[in-house]
């Protein structure tokens, strides 16, 4: 965001990952859009401030809503929308790209860390149970999304954790 702010009124280039599509988008100082270097005649209107947009492209009407974080809603479908400027992409910081290198297991909600099933340095396979989090009257097992080695255990058993708290870090082999 800072970088965007700094960019002022120069042309802005973005790398977009919308769902499973990668798009290079440029916004000219006049506010015209180039998608993968093709000019797109897009008519955008903010229907609900900061929340819902009406987008008409050559007669095709779309409704877009922003739900939370990078989750967007388009014509009834949910998708993840990741926006980075060119440098961020180059640096490989475009969302999702680095997921396989380093996994952070975070608490999806506030709760009690009932049990930790692994130790630091242990190697885990995809799907292995890592911790048990008790929340909303249920015990939820958080599992590894990829095989790897437990690089860090950030929280001890029996701790009350906030939503989003880092619990475990897995590094891929």
């Amino acid at each position, binding site marked *: 965001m800072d970088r965007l702010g700094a960019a002022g009124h120069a042309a802005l280039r973005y790398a977009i990952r919308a769902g499973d599509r990668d798009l290079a988008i440029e916004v000219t100082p006049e506010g015209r859009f180039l998608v993968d270097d093709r000019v797109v005649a897009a008519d955008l209107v903010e229907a609900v401030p900061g929340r*819902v947009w009406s987008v008409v492209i050559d007669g095709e009407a779309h409704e877009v809503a922003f739900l939370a974080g990078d989750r967007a809603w388009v014509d009834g479908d949910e998708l993840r929308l990741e926006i980075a400027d060119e440098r961020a992409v180059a640096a490989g910081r475009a969302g999702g790209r680095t997921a396989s290198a380093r996994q952070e297991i975070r608490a999806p909600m506030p709760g009690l860390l009932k049990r930790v099933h692994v130790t630091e340095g242990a190697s885990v396979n995809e799907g292995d149970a890592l911790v048990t989090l008790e929340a909303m009257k249920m015990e939820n097992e958080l599992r590894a999304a990829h095989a790897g080695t437990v690089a860090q255990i950030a929280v001890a058993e029996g701790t009350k954790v906030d939503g989003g708290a880092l619990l475990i870090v897995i590094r891929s082999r």
Partner: protein
Amino acid sequence: MANRGEIALRVMRTCRELGIATATVYSDIDRAAPHVRAAGEAYPIGAASPRESYLNIERIVAVAKRAGCDAVHPGYGFLSENADFADAVAAAGIAFVGPPGAAQRALGEKTSARRLAALSGVPVAEGTMQPLTDEAEARTTAERIGYPVLLKPAGGGGGKGMRVVRAAGELAAAWRASTGEATTAFGAPALLMERLVHPARHVEVQVLADQHGNVVWLGERDCSIQRRHQKLIEETPGPGVSDALRERLGAAAVKVATAAAYVNAGTAEFLVAPDGTFVFLEMNTRLQVEHPVTELVTGLDLVALQLRIAAGERLPFGQDGIRRTGAAIELRITAEDPFAGFLPQGGRIEFVREPSGPGIRMDSGLAAPMAVPTEYDPLLAKLIAWGPDRATALARARRAAREMIVAGVPTSLPFHSFVLGERDFVAGGYDTDYVATHWDPPGVPLIAESAAIAAALAGIARLRSARRPVTSPATPWTASARLDMRR
């Protein structure tokens, strides 16, 4: 009203339609919740933690007395199946809208319900007729009836604490987890064991019984679409239920209710095998979350009937007075992330757009802004659709689900749009394995390239507008947005 959320609102709606004044209770965190705003009277009963508030019998009964209530409706969950609560309310000279404590005890404790069903000639799954004393007994029982088996809390329903045990090796962990959850959810660690009926459909039958011994069944609901043994989608008629099977299920449900001297609305749950044979699971001694699908096909208001029954009235119709028309389906919109194993998510609702139109009924507890506490059930709202036939009901439900927007917390909506477009579900051929066998979240829905581009452009427009001062409400918003694009 001894509850919160959508069910409190739904019950109070019927009360207002009948001209009955309403009073509700609320926990500190719910002070501004929709059910408080909708109530005629509202009284605080303590901290957010259920034990301090919605599970606190003493405080709730005290409020009911102070407010001069004639009747107390427990909704579902919380104290709705707590026999002591039913007794305490009755002892205070207030009508409890539900079965008396005795009937709840007879059916609430699952092994006693199994014994009662078996005695009245209703088939039950092979398993324990008494609570298990310890893990060792569980082990021997499992070996006797043979794996896979099902471990269940004896103390309560709703699928909480239930575990499938496929082999001896899994028993220890399952025993530990189920005991823990049973204690958390029902305050009682007792478990029972049943042979796993599998594959199977989860089919339940709605019954109504008055205080004069009249019992009728209203129809069935297929609730096989579950995660963690908890329902996500329910429909009636059941796609796998023939007229003959429906009659047999109805008769079985009435037998159990009669044997338990049951009163008010209740639901008998069954597992139906592919060959049409079935076993009785348990009786839910309360109004079900999914009661609206039965209301839509029968044209009845189950809450109104509950109140009349609690007031001592006779059922206004007999078994042959019940007509079912068309098909109905309910989608549970929960604060869970279907892309992350349906993990419940607390948070804050920032924006909501609810669907409506032909054939759509919303029973919703949503408002914006609104806090979604992690202390309670993640159910936010129910989207219910009716149609003259199943295809129309499904088409309407899908259309409506895709109109709905909830911003602030993840919801089960993406799962619902997937299921309503999925071949096997649309064909009606599904069972309780459906979620496990069909929901492999792609994480990325396949949407039109143009839609993705639209999203990207709007996303960038938002970033850009974030750098402007907020538009004054006076300025026409479309104009201002356009200007922004021309910058």
